[in-house]
């Protein structure tokens, strides 16, 4: 008999369909292990990428704050400089001091008072006519001899319009509003001095301040999966040690939501049956956070502050609630547990933050503060190493004792 191709194909199809082979080697454990290993590998890769993403986001937000600050700062400085006009009626105004730049070595004790201003007037400024702006003056004097900044070159003989010695100094924070008198040009020629009136203000600033802050908080255990955003709300109180350095503390009500792999959660307090393996935990935690931070003002003026802060936080854990899954003899079980006031953790989290403050009223300032919190040790019943990031937004208000500048 001659076999045609069709016959062969049909026979093979039938044979394949009714394949009389015995299947052997079914081994679910092997498949299970491969699945778990692959999951672990992918989780580790994901964790690594999340870790870098976390840091990148923090750096980016800090950078943005920085850029924002400098744009606003430059705009304001330019606006201030362009607004400088020669005002012939300066002498009539109160609270204006006149700084005369001359070559006389006047021994008047008031010269020393002006010594504090040398930061601003490193080069002498010579007004040419009534419409000259300070920008132009600065350009013209760009090559001026830097030695003019010395206080010896400042004379009080031409200082007028101030009510007393106390009013002559200026706050370092403030952009000086400098106005050049041109009322009597012959007088100027006679003295060959340039009179620069400086607006003065109170030289004191409040040392204590408080801020009400709130914002979302994203938490992750070992940079694994992120469940949902929690929140943080509270009050921070600060004390200015110096113009740039402050100490801040306060109290925040935090709710952190997170998902943890079983290996990152100590299961002792879940009281699982013997031979159980915890697979994952999902839950939230309500805590009172007490931070203690050192704040450093990187750049500051009257309207804006750019700062960085670092410190440690303590946590009083109020409530923890967990849904968890565990396997026992290859069967998966689900359960949940909640705990109240399970632990108090002292200084177990490092705070790193950067922020930006903009004055919105006479005293109040709007504050935006992105932060990251990195664990020093475990937290809660599961002893989890919980990392967080978020952004706090709120208002700051000075409320007590003044400090001299």
């Amino acid at each position, binding site marked *: *008999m001659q*076999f045609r*191709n069709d*016959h*062969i*194909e049909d*026979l*093979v*199809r*039938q*044979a*394949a369909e*009714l*394949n*009389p*082979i*015995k*299947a*052997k*080697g*079914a*081994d*679910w454990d*092997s*498949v*299970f292990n*491969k*699945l778990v290993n*692959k999951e672990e590998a992918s989780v580790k890769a994901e964790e690594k990428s999340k870790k870098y993403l976390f840091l990148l986001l923090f750096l980016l937000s800090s950078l943005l704050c920085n850029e924002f600050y400098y744009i606003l700062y430059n705009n304001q400085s330019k606006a201030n400089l362009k607004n400088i006009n020669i005002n012939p009626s300066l002498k009539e105004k109160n609270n204006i001091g006149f700084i005369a730049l001359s070559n006389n070595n006047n021994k008047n004790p008031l010269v020393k008072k002006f010594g504090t201003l040398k930061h601003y007037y490193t080069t002498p400024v010579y007004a040419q006519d009534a419409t000259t702006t300070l920008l132009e003056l600065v350009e013209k004097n760009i090559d001026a001899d830097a030695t003019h900044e010395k206080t010896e070159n400042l004379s009080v003989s031409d200082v007028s319009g101030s009510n007393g010695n106390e009013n002559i100094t200026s706050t370092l924070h403030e952009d000086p509003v400098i106005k050049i008198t041109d009322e009597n040009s012959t007088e100027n020629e006679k003295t060959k001095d340039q009179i620069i009136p400086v607006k003065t203000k109170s030289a004191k600033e409040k040392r204590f301040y408080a801020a009400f802050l709130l914002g979302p908080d994203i938490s992750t255990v070992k940079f694994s999966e992120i469940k949902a955003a929690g929140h943080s709300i509270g009050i921070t109180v600060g004390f200015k040690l110096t113009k740039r350095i402050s100490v801040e503390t306060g109290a925040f009500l935090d709710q952190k939501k997170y998902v943890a792999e079983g290996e990152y959660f100590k299961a002792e307090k879940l009281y699982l049956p013997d031979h159980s393996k915890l697979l994952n935990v999902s839950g939230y935690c309500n805590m009172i956070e007490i931070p203690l931070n050192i704040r450093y003002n990187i750049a500051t003026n009257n309207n804006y502050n750019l700062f960085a802060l670092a410190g440690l936080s303590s946590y009083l854990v109020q409530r923890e609630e967990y849904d968890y899954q565990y*396997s026992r003899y*290859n*069967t*998966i079980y689900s359960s949940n547990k909640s705990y109240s006031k399970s632990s108090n953790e002292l200084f177990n989290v490092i705070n790193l933050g950067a922020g930006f403050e903009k004055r919105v009223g006479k005293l109040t300032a709007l504050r935006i503060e992105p932060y990251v919190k990195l664990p020093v040790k475990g937290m809660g019943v599961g002893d989890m190493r919980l990392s967080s990031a978020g952004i706090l937004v709120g208002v700051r208000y000075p409320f007590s004792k003044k400090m001299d500048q």
Partner: protein
Amino acid sequence: MEDLNSILKGCIVNDHKYQKILYEQYYNYAFKIAFRYIYHYDNIPEVVNDGFVKIFRNFSGYIIKDEPINEYNLLAWIKKIIIHTAIDELRKNNLMPEIGAMPDEAWELSDQHGQADQGLLYKEILKQVKSLPPAYRAVFNLYVVDGYSHKEIAALMNISVGTSKSNLFKAKAHLQKIFKKDSDKMKYAISE
């Protein structure tokens, strides 16, 4: 006993309990598919297990449909993944010809007379198909048994459509030659 829908839903959410049930239910089916491609009987479980790992890893995208389409879809999907895994295994070994005999205890033979004869015939046919060089065997199985087109085979095996056609032709010619030698046995089987 869990119904298929529950099993599928469990697998979609990565529930290991349902994954185990699905594995146990469809292991034989997957094994018989892999058997046609993989020469060594002892290597088949590993390929099948790898296939199931792929299945479970990708189950989140599975769309549940009504019965009986649901099971057809599932069977087709399992078949596709097991075939791909087996082809990957062959390619990993550079489609090198293999040697070695099938252990007799691997065959499941019926006690009934007619079925026993038919079983012997099918056993013989499968043996002959398995004796083909791996490249011919794969193309033959993909085209004749699993219904792939030459274009699909070419894409899967990373060969040209011409090579696929040529391999199929050679595989058929090879089998015809073998079957001719044993024509008496075949005649008997066909008359049955």
